[in-house]
């Protein structure tokens, strides 16, 4: 139990640091940044309670907000993602999730990709909706959501595959 908590804590710190120090400064084409810290929410143990997940996601979001001076937009988006995570799990893993036996370390790439895709799109849409905070700029919001999502999805899937799949 303690080692699992330790790994979670370490993952929290590392993803937060990587986000604020590296990913916030990429600015690909001037405005595209990946938001890889949500990998933490994707990989949070499924059997742990949802209350814990909500609280930790809020904490993670607010930390990113403090570092990037963005009010509470990351916290809001993370909480939405954390709350709606079971939906995405059900949609992409189906029966496997019903039986509480999803293991991110040995699922097939297709389901994993679908799961990350759905979650990232929702997270980024809420994020940019609140960040731009003007419904008349919906085109800008959708544009940012689309491009950043592509970036985030690729990086997230890579990170999940690289760091948490069992070595064969």
């Amino acid at each position, binding site marked *: 139990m303690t080692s699992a908590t330790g790994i979670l804590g370490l993952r929290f710190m590392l993803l937060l640091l990587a986000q604020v120090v590296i990913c916030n400064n990429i600015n690909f084409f001037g405005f595209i940044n990946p938001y890889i810290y949500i990998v933490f929410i994707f990989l949070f143990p499924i059997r742990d309670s949802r209350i814990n997940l909500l609280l930790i996601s809020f904490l993670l979001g*607010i930390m990113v907000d*403090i570092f990037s*001076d*963005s*009010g509470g937009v990351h*916290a809001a988006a993370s909480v939405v993602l954390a709350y709606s995570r079971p939906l995405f799990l059900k949609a992409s893993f189906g029966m496997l999730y019903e039986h509480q036996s999803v293991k991110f370390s040995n699922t097939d790439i297709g389901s994993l990709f679908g799961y990350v895709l759905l979650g990232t799109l929702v997270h980024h849409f809420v994020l940019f909706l*609140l960040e731009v905070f003007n419904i008349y700029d919906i085109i800008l919001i959708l544009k940012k959501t689309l491009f950043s999502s592509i970036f985030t999805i690729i990086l997230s899937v890579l990170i999940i595959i690289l760091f948490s799949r069992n070595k064969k």
Partner: protein
Amino acid sequence: MQQIINFVIRNKTFLLFLLLFSVSLALTIQSHSYHRSKFINSANSLTGGVYGTFNSIGKYFNLKDKNEKLAEENRHLRMQLLKHREPNDSTFIDSSLFEATYKIVTAQVYKNSYALTNNFLMLNKGKKDSIKQDFGVISSKGIIGIIDNTSKSYATVLSILNTNSRINARLKGTNHLGTLKWNGKSPYFSQLVDVSKFAPVKIGDTIETGGQSAIFPRGIGIGTINKFETDISGDTYNIEVKLFNDMTNLGTVYIIENTDRNEIRALQNTIDD
């Protein structure tokens, strides 16, 4: 009573979600009003320490670029020096008339952002260097923003690339004033609105600070006119300004303090009353 408790227990996940979401929403809304982002900002020792560490690594990578900028600025200052030396040679100057109204402090940019719609910078100077809210921040090329929050040794800057930023500006050489805003799109362009339609607006003309507020002195460069159009009402111009500063690449900046600020504020308050 029992039913209420049961309801709370049954929906505790949803209620917690609602609570956390409203807290974040409140913080977001609060951050959209000027000088209200009191709790969530990067002017604290934790973020300062992290950004400071990584800045000290990262700064070696663009030393060459910084050197060129400094050399360019030296050249510019030397030219100004030469220009001013000649005519003043034989005139008597009463030094009390030239007492400095502005104090300048240099600072390093620890964090810069320009891809969001509300961008903030973080500098490595704070309260202990007597930096306060509402001081102006400029670079060698032009204006950057206004100090927003300060902690002991760090300060956050409301960048001109922030949709909440409003800066008084004018056309160089005239007294036609406008308000500089940002529409959140390109970090290289800013928008000057409310310029009277009688102003002689030409593409390529320089825009500079208007000196109507106590924050920036008059005549600090902002940018050049890229294109302009008349407002829907037809009474004012909306001008797109190409910024002198490359806001995506900032190293050393200068913080300007207007020592007469309190006096000006006090005077303005008496008018308001």
